[in-house]
């Protein structure tokens, strides 16, 4: 199994930490992992993305331009990464703020309206976990138990009391996931 994922959105949306949680959870399942952020003169409000790879084998390149899965959280990232999904691959996006919806017919596309849901129930800080839930619904590569362990590893201890809320947000993401174009 090798899963090559790009997560892209605005800085401050929790793009990098979503990737980190996936990476930690992957380690808990004895997988090889790699987490490569785009780094540059980025700031809150600018674009941010991270390439996460989970594999049973030695990982070749941490830097890629084709992905099994793209998780897209703003229009700029849609413009940049819709075409980077491998044929037959997966694109998950939050329609909030998206003006041009994806057009590809050779990939599976799902919507997860995480931003709306998060503000509706007042958990805007857990937005990224709702998105992650949507992804895990389609590709359950991480078990709930490992996800919890991954959260424990990636969060500082003073935030460990928030883990149940994080898990709940993941479950919400699984519930609100909607197919947009499925092969």
């Amino acid at each position: 199994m090798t899963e090559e994922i790009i997560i892209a959105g605005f800085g401050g949306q929790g793009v990098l930490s979503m990737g980190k949680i996936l990476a930690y959870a992957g380690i808990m399942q004895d997988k090889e992992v790699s987490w490569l952020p785009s780094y540059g003169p980025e700031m809150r409000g600018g674009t941010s993305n991270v390439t996460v790879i989970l594999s049973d084998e030695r990982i070749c390149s941490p830097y890629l331009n084709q992905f099994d899965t793209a998780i897209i959280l703003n229009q700029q990232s849609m413009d940049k990464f819709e075409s980077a999904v491998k044929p037959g691959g997966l694109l998950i996006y939050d329609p909030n703020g998206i003006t041009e919806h994806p057009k590809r017919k050779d990939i599976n596309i799902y919507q997860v309206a995480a931003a709306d849901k998060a503000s509706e129930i007042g958990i805007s800080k857990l937005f990224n976990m709702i998105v992650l839930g949507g992804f895990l619904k389609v590709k359950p590569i991480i078990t709930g138990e490992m996800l919890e362990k991954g959260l424990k590893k990636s969060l500082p201890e003073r935030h460990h009391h928030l883990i149940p809320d994080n898990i709940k947000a993941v479950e919400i993401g699984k519930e609100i996931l909607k197919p947009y174009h499925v092969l």
Partner: protein
Amino acid sequence: MAKELKLMKGNQAIAEAAIRCGCDGYFGYPITPQSEVLEHLMAERPYLTTGMAVLQAESELASINMVYAGASTGKRVMTSSSSPGFSLMQEGLSYIAGAELPALCVNVVRGGPGLGTIQPSQSDYFQTTKGGGHGDYRLITLAPASVQEMYDFVELGFDLAFKYRNPVAILSDGVIGQVMEKVMVDDYKPRWTNEYIEKNCPWAATGHRSTGKHRIVTSLELEALKQEAVNERIQAKYRKCEEEDARHEAIQCDDAEYLFVAYGSAARICMKTVELARAEGIKVGLVRPITLWPFPTKAVAEIGGRMKKIMSVEMNAGQMIEDVKLAVGCKVPVEHYGRYGGVIPTPVEILDALKKMVK
């Protein structure tokens, strides 16, 4: 506590390895994309546990000269920087090599020339392997291609530095510095005691008076004949190093007709291209130099000699290709593929370049 599995950035692995392998001191100045080295050291505060000194100096010039001073006393000391900062250290490195002292320096390369960009690059190959400072000296140069190697090469770097009493460089780049991967870390090793240094480093200026002999650390010799003898001694070390410590990794070379030569992050990207190319029936292999100086000339000559064509893939305008060409002579055509200024080539664009070469 025995070995432990961690998820770390390459830069953090450098810092963690320094603490755990018994490094005595780090002197550095922040610069992107390697600031996590100093950041991690300051967060871990090893001066309270292993006794390792960590100091943010006022500049790169100060850092490298603090390393020079620390190395003079037989301590295991290091610095790290990125390209513009590393340029500032060249004079100090020449002095350290001239005074025949062991030291470790890490360059997490970014795009140049000048202040350039903060994105990853491999454009400091010439500077590091051909001598950025003055005089007939070499930097023993290790090129990590993973976070685990960032970790492992710190202790290896110190071992080689002390074996040859010569500065060692870890030549990394923004990709390997910034990526997080699994890394197996070792148990903490104690720092060398003064007694150990006294016994094993008879050249070190330890302030010890029992021997009655002055230990003078200098790179200055006003008599040309004596300076020539110093050079001869240094060159003899380099010949020994070329003989004993050139390292490489060969990937899928046995049945290959074409060969990539690439190091560090470019090698990782080429590994992916090898996978893609073989899926399309192109038999390509990869030689990854692990030491850039000494260059694995024998391995490249032997493996490269069997190929139809060779491509040197680098994140620069073509620097290592000169060593590849020297290794294979004129027997096999060698081409270069590179992106520069901070642009990372993708596995697919390298595949396209390979297909063009194969045609």
